[in-house]
């Protein structure tokens, strides 16, 4: 199982990931003309951070979806039937990553479903040339976290 990984230290908020996502992904494009990526990189006094679906193993959004719009797909990813979304934002209420893109004017919530069709290297990851965004094996990520912990890093 793969997941997104964001290295804040390397991000300079160039927004190439957002642009790529907005241009390629089907549901982003639905918002006519507007720039609506599923990935959002935001600035905070503590540095940049990313808002994007992590396709959690224990996805609370799927249980919370009263419209039965969010489901775990056959490949383990959390997928969405956007036509079934009725805009209650229950998913947004339970997503600890703040990943749901809530669009009030459409009364719907959207998320990354890897619709860009690039499961090996999603469009946003491909677009990042700063070494800030990766899509790799969860297990490897956990190993990396463990190693980082042993090294006493990251400190932030």
């Amino acid at each position: 199982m793969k997941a997104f990984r964001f290295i804040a230290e390397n991000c300079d908020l160039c927004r190439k990931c957002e642009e790529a996502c907005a241009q390629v992904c089907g549901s982003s494009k639905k918002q006519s003309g507007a720039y609506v990526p599923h990935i959002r990189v935001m600035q905070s006094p503590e540095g940049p951070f990313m808002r994007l679906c992590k396709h959690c193993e224990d996805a609370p959004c799927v249980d919370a979806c009263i419209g039965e719009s969010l489901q775990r797909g056959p490949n383990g990813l959390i997928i969405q039937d956007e036509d079934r979304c009725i805009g209650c934002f229950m998913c947004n209420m339970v997503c600890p990553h703040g990943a749901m893109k809530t669009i009030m004017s459409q009364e719907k919530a959207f998320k990354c479903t890897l619709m860009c069709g690039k499961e090996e290297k999603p469009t946003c990851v491909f677009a990042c040339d700063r070494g800030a965004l990766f899509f790799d094996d969860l297990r490897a990520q956990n190993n990396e976290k463990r190693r980082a912990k042993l090294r006493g890093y990251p400190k932030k």
Partner: protein
Amino acid sequence: MKKIKTASTTGRQHVIVGNCIAAVSAAETLRKMNPQDSIVIIGEEDVPSYSRCLITYFLGDMITRKHLLSHDAQWYAERNVELMLSSRAEGLDVKNRQVMVRQNGKNKTVSYDTLLVATGSTPIFLPAFPYDPDGIIGMRNYADSVRLKSWAKKGKKAVIIGAGFVGLKSAYGLVKQGVQVKVVELLPTVLGRMTDLEASARVKARLTRHELLEIELNNSVIATRKRGDGYVVTYQDGTEEACDFIVASVGVRACTDFLKDSGVDIDRIVLVDDRQQTSVDGIYAAGDVCRSRHIVTGEWIYNAIWPVAAAGARIAAANMSGEKLTYEGNIPMNSVDFYELWITAIGNVQDEGPDVEEITFKTPAIYQKVKLRGGVPFAFMSIGNVDGAGIIRGAIVGKTPWEEFVRRPNAKVLPVVNSYAADPAATACA
């Protein structure tokens, strides 16, 4: 729940009474874990499973019938689940492991090895407004929505008793059909205990901007009587009002009738343990029919919400399959939108006390409030901008101290955190 193991296949029979989210969530898990066992669902309604939460959207023509009725025959066939519709469980013989069922006027018995009680809950009616199929009903199932839809003609008038989530959603649906609606609520706030006075006022203002909708708080219906084709309701101050039909939404009670005298322990709701098992071995319960834990305090509570039914049922099914899993529960919460005004509420925002601290953010468009006890957030409510509400729910559930939470980069997504981080004193006193 992490992984689903395939248990040994003994050809057992798992019976589920009820056919909404708890039932289908359990059936799904049971099938994955027990490819060879038989699974039977006994449902009182005459349509296959659908999301109960969508019936008011159907009432208001915001979704179609096809959209609402999401689980067709194929859904059951693909999972090899036998579905008994129009079938009401009427009794339980624990000794012989049998459920007594009434289907289309005929009595049947269904044997089980394990049983899941997933009968949910049903609206409460009071002597002042007794159930009347001709004009005083609740809003709980597909049949209710079909009936209300048939009554909901332009120029008609409805009285809704109770301004909780279901009452207001029903009102919203009826107004979309051109019905004039009056909602009467005993409490000083709409949406129960999940809003404060200010939030309630904002929600009320948004809803009643529509000329067909009126909401009256601090009032109640003390009597109803039939007059001609319609009804007359009497309010507590003695005034009367005529209407065409009445929707009762003052709360629900768990559907436990068929468990009477069976030996399953009930205290208004079914008492389950952490594995969702009832007091009787092999009999489990999940969803609106039973209790669950408050994930933060660990107390047993009645948390009749969709996510609890979905998750609790999966845990029940795993235990019915021989795995030992416990359900940690959830926190009372809900989220809804009326005319593009979103309301998200997590925990009891009305909790008061000398040890309770409040942090508020207010603009004409946005109102957010966090409540802390001992420096730890326990409730959050947001109106207008609910973006990223789950981030703060994470802090509530994780008991993250507020001062630590506000330093997290993604916490700044929330206006209340942002403004607190910039000027703690101003926000706390707002």
